[in-house]
């Protein structure tokens, strides 16, 4: 006879992409590379979600150019997600994007109980609107304060200072946690960072992984200990030229 038809109680884990779609993203195939990186990361993300029955992983995405708008508005289970390509064109309304996310992280519509949300901001340039106001609005929301905030800088023109302000300042104690913007200088490293954020970080935020003694057990270094960054795997296809920005 079957085991009783019950399953582990779970909590939602909201994962939000904030994607820069300004005109400069059209250069050197950056927009295509980002679309590809996210699309390629979905099966791995679905596998992590499957392995973590304590979490219900729900994905949303915001695009920002002249204005910010929802690219995926309703929180979508990762195994049902179809990634439509983002198109580049316009300026960089990053502040507006943060306000949009701030509104979405209010309770309601956010659940009363959840796992820490994961926010991933990807940008190749400078905000053209009032970034500070957007960030202030975001950080007033308790769920945004609790969120794991990551930033990926695409190429050399990204505003690292702005991205650092988004993820927060690095606590002095943490030795290895990548509390700095991740700098993707080519398509391969972009794909690796997207994969890391959507699998290892989602895993850490939903069901804790094994701890080693150097992991700070004190909650000093943020509310979720971030996993190691992916190793630099030497890519045999590097020679034949992924995009170089």
């Amino acid at each position, binding site marked *: 006879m079957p085991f009783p038809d019950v399953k582990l109680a779970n909590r939602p884990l909201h994962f939000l992409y904030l994607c820069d779609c300004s005109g400069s993203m059209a250069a050197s195939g950056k927009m295509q590379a980002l679309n590809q990186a996210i699309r390629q990361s979905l099966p791995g993300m679905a596998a992590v979600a499957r392995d*973590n029955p304590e979490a219900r992983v729900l994905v949303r995405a915001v695009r920002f150019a002249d204005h910010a708008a929802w690219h995926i508005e309703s929180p979508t289970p990762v195994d049902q997600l179809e990634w439509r390509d983002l198109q580049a064109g316009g300026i960089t309304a990053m502040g507006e994007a943060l306000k949009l996310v701030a509104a979405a992280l209010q309770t309601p519509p956010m659940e009363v109980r959840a796992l820490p949300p994961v926010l991933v901001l990807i940008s190749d340039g400078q905000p053209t609107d009032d970034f500070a106001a957007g960030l202030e609005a975001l950080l007033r929301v308790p769920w945004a304060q609790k969120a794991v905030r990551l930033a990926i800088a695409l190429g050399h023109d990204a505003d690292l200072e702005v991205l650092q302000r988004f993820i927060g300042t690095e606590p002095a104690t943490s030795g290895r946690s990548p509390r700095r913007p991740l700098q993707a200088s080519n398509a391969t490293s972009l794909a690796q960072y997207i994969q890391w954020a959507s699998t290892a970080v989602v895993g850490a935020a939903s069901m804790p992984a*094994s*701890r080693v003694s150097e992991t700070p057990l004190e909650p000093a270094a943020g509310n979720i200990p971030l996993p190691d960054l992916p190793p630099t795997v030497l890519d045999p296809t590097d020679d034949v030229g992924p995009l170089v920005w």
Partner: protein
Amino acid sequence: MSWILPEGASLDFEGLEAPLQIIRGLGGGTQGQVYEVDLEGERLALKWYLPACIARDGGLERRLVASIRATAPNEDFLWPIALLRVSPASRPLIRLRQESFGYLMPLRPPAYVGASEHAAGRLAIGLRQVLRACFGLADAFHALHLAGLCYKDVSLGNLFLEPGGGSILICDNDNVAVDGADHGAVLGTPGFMAPEVLLGQARPGADSDLFSLAVLLFRLLTRHDPLKGQMELAIRCLDEPARRRLCGEDPVFIFDPVDDRNRPDPIEHVAALITWPIYPRPLQALFEQTFCRGMKQPSRRALTGQWKQELARTLDRRALCPACGQENFQASGAPALCWSCASPLPEPITLVLPHGAVLAAPDNELHPHHFDALAGEDLRRPLARVVAHPQDPRRLGLRNLQAAAWSAETPDGRVQPVQPGESCSLAALARIHTPAGPIAVQRPTRPSPAA
């Protein structure tokens, strides 16, 4: 996934005479990557570490070498077979700049699935199989602890189940060390870690294994977490500081007989409320022992041998509800209702053995420990199995799984041989003589429909 070892390539490793072919990558995490490999026609698994993992864990290589020398405590571990370093000739094929190493282990057969599939309710598995898996887990840790070793990182992620029979495999044995020898970097997985380890007051060892083992057993038996009740519901954002409070600073068992602050919620924690009453009182008591007194006093936790004994006895008490067919685990003697449909359960036929008693229900088995007080509980080599008659499933028989004949005795003293592989009808017999010892067939005072 970016694979460190090139799929399809043949690599030479120091100490291996033949090259190892990398068949395919199986998975990867923050520690390293696992590959299916072929060594002279034999399929094995290879775990290859990331340099960051090796750098963090200075004792890793020493522990692996010691484990390889010690060999596996029993066959339920995917135990390291050999430590591998790549030869200079194959070094350029490894896609990492820093030096690294890995180890070979048996390949997990495809019938075994991750235990999280069971926790998520996606696995077709029965209560008998779950209890057998729990027994296997307790048995494996019993063998490990008796060898003076401890596992340190018990979690749902390191356990695989074969849902058809309930056998298990334990992977990620690279933290195993001699208990008390402080070589490892691992502390455990939050949610499974003993409170004293989570709070940094103790290093993981055999005592903290006993806590983690009880958590894992509880999660397999109930599909719920022993510490997630009302106190978890009061937490809005379940992050690290919250988990530390819930599992370390103020941990309260959801079924603590005295402290009722963390009772399961009737809607959110329905899994625990449905499944917990299924299990007999002595089994529940071991959880209470570990999660109440044993929460703060590691030496009071239920031992692997106690778990083995009580899990084996629970399987001996298995009976099927005649109304709905669901598996029940009756306390001896007491009249009972089916946990699933609330029908009264008839008093079953009982096989009375020199050491213990087994209720007659299809698939229940007699083992050497039922006959020999000195034999430890072991479910691997059954001597007899209760079977339903192929034409009339209500008629139960006992199949001889031994190599020698039994003699079956009717109430009026007639004796008939039961050859190996044959079954004898329990309704007609009073006693069975086997080479292992006698079996007395005790029928209920009121005849039940099954008899």
